């Protein structure tokens, strides 16, 4: 038998939108996400990925090829969630239409044999069928109900059919559509958002003018960095407080900022004051500014033999987060030298460790993160720093190859407290002036995140409705009894959803109509 292409497509569509497929896709999604938690991920920590390559030199490249270090950007991960979304939409849209139709149709007619339903009861009650019908109507307030009268065996039979809990399906549809909205919002953030981080010494300013201003920048797929929201920021003061054992108690930075409209108006002299603190970013112009970390920048002044002075202050990076012991390299070029060769070979670098609260002694280490008793332990290197060879260089280190080749040589080693100085063999004096602080700031832009929040709330409302509300049906049949003024009442109840306990409510309804203690079935 030949199947038409249309039938193949239709079957594929039915297969994709079936509940069983949704189940399989959910499992696949769960399994596919797991390596993202178990293996180091580039998006979280590059160093750990490099470490993994060192530890598993044979396996790691293979794993890398299938994207195991970038799971959430891998095509197979995207394939799974896109299929899940298609399956979801294909399942939910017909259900929404069906639900809208159900909202407009009256509840289904009363089954002929109510005794076959999971919940049923029957019994005679006082009152004519008309009187009992009034009671039934009062009882079914709040239910969607319909009333029919049927001639059977020469007597009028009244039938009520009622249904309740339509919000369950509405919640179900809302949940699934909101999931789609949430994913779209998430994707929009990944496409049009960006995130940059930069270290700013206290007293300095920074403007969100281009990617190059940042130390690191993660751009969305549709962001090329040419149209960043203009915004400027100045760090006025930074304060960290610590408990006696050195654990951080609080960080905050007093800053000034200028918004896009400030800059457009050209009012660049005015700074709006704000405070950045942990858990309290600055939100302005669709940007969020976070205080991420902080550290120290020692300041050195070099007095060259000819009397010229140069002052250098650059951030050193934190080696030990608990004591803020830091390391770094402050680099100098000798001024006033015209000979290219001589200029290149008389560069200076001050490298070593900085302790905000020094242990004292020959081997300097830090015992407390606050700036109580600062000291540096430095090597002074002289020679060619290798700054001109075109390669990028870390601001925290000197190029180790320059030391190995002998182009850069150690000319002094000393421990200095602020105000102390050392004199090199050629008469150059290096003074440790003092310490400034720096803060690490992250600037983020995510146009999708407000939508994600809105849809997440809709997801919550939807799931709560669809799990807690029970869709149930209730039928009543009234028939005049043989004795005058009495009515035979038949009741039936059916929960249309998973067993979530319709029994208690049915028992209550039964007790209302038939009176208590008449359990049957």
């Amino acid at each position, binding site marked *: 038998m030949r199947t038409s292409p249309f039938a193949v497509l239709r079957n594929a569509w039915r297969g994709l939108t079936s*509940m*069983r497929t949704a189940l399989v896709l*959910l499992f696949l999604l769960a399994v596919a996400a797991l390596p993202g*938690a178990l293996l180091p991920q580039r998006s979280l920590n590059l160093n750990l990925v490099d470490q993994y390559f060192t530890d598993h030199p044979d396996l790691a490249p293979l794993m890398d090829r299938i994207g195991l270090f970038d799971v959430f950007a891998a095509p197979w991960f995207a394939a799974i969630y896109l299929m899940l979304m298609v399956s979801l939409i294909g399942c939910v849209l017909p259900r929404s239409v069906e639900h809208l139709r159900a909202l407009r149709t009256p509840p289904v007619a009363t089954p002929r044999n109510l005794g076959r339903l999971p919940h049923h009861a029957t019994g005679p009650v006082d009152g004519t069928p008309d009187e009992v019908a009034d009671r039934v109507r009062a009882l079914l307030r709040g239910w969607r109900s319909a009333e029919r009268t049927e001639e059977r065996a020469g007597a009028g039979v009244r039938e009520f059919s009622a249904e309740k809990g339509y919000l369950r399906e509405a919640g179900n549809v809302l949940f699934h559509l909101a999931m789609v909205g949430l994913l779209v919002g998430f994707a929009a953030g990944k496409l049009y958002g960006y995130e940059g981080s930069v270290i700013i010494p206290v007293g300095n300013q920074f403007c969100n003018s281009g990617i190059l201003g940042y130390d690191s920048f993660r751009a969305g797929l549709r962001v090329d960095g040419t149209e960043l929201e203009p915004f400027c920021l100045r760090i006025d003061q930074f304060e960290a407080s610590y408990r006696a054992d050195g654990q951080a108690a609080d960080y905050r930075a007093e800053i000034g900022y200028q918004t896009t409209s400030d800059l457009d108006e050209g009012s660049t002299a005015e700074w709006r004051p704000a405070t950045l603190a942990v858990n309290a970013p600055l939100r302005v112009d669709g940007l969020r500014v976070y205080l991420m970390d902080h550290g120290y920048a020692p300041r050195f002044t070099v007095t060259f033999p000819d009397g010229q002075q140069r002052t250098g202050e650059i951030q050193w990076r934190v080696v030990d987060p608990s004591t803020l012991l830091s390391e770094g390299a402050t680099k100098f070029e000798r001024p006033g030298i015209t000979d290219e060769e001589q200029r290149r070979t008389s560069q200076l670098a001050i490298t070593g460790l900085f302790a905000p609260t020094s242990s004292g002694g020959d081997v300097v280490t830090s015992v407390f993160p606050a700036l109580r008793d600062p000291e540096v332990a430095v090597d002074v290197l002289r020679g060619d720093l290798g700054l001109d060879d075109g390669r990028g260089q870390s601001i925290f280190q000197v190029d180790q190859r320059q030391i190995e080749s002998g182009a850069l040589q150690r000319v002094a080693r000393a421990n200095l407290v602020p105000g102390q100085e050392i004199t090199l063999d050629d008469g150059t004096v290096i003074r440790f002036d003092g310490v400034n602080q720096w803060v690490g700031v992250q600037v983020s832009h*995510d146009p999708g995140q407000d939508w994600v929040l809105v849809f997440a709330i809709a997801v919550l409302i939807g799931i709560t409705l669809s799990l807690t509300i029970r869709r149930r049906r209730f039928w009543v049949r009234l028939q005049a009894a043989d004795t005058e003024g009495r009515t035979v009442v038949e009741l039936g109840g059916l929960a249309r959803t998973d067993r979530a306990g319709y029994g208690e409510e049915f028992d209550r309804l039964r007790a209302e109509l038939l009176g208590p203690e008449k359990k049957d079935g």
Partner: protein
Amino acid sequence: MLAQYSDWFYIAAVAVYVLAMVLHAYAQAAVRTRRPVLVGAGGTPADIPAAEEQPARAVGARAANMGVSVAVLGALLHLASIVARGLATERWPLGNMYEFISMITFAAVVTWLVMLRRVPAARSAAPWVLLPIVVLMTLGGTALYTAAGPVMPALRSYWLPVHVTAIAISSGLLIVSGVASILFLLRSGSGVPAAIAERMPTADVLDRVAYRVMIVAFPLYTFAVVAGAVWAEAAWGRFWGWDPKETVAFVAWVIYAAYLHARATAGWRTGRAAWINIAGLTTMIFNLFFINLVVAGLHSYAGVG
């Protein structure tokens, strides 16, 4: 001072839970014959004494009733321990893994006690439900114990009571649901000696417990994850960043979503759904222990080591 009381209450709570377990186990041992369990639609508490009229069963019934009362006492001690810890540290008592486990197990016990009122026929599952709770609390109180103290600045936010409490309570609920599913499989399978299986609630009751707890747990867990995302947006600069803890929480959420879908899929409704629930529970436990203690991430607040 208060911290010391908190620790004593905690130890007392564990001891009292163990006593409740013993009482329940004794109650079941006292039942010699197959005990009729009423599987009415939402049986009423009045059903139980009716089924236990013979004297041999009366002893068992008394022990079981005592077991429930003792478990309530344990829960009160447990609550006192949590409150004292909060007062001693002058912060919300959810700042490290010990406190987190204390809250999870407390939520599980309360869930179980509430469930007993709704589905009295589930009572004979008590020893099996209390067992993982006692094991978790013992682990929490020994290997993972952390002395009372303040927390790091990042944790000082009003989102901590919201996010972490919601996660802890939903975890407690999910444990009860998961244990009910494990018992369901034991009860309906053939791998368990009849002597044990027959003293458990019927498979139908266990299945109902698992589902009824889940329909509360899942929305609450979803809320907890959303609250976490809102907090992360303020604390870490993004609302979702695939931090290991976030990723495994996502995996667990997807598995529980699969459980709910399975409940609505022909052929998956009971047995397979129970397996999915167990997979979800395994993921939650994995997230609690392995991700907290072995994998480094932003959620490394365990305070251990």
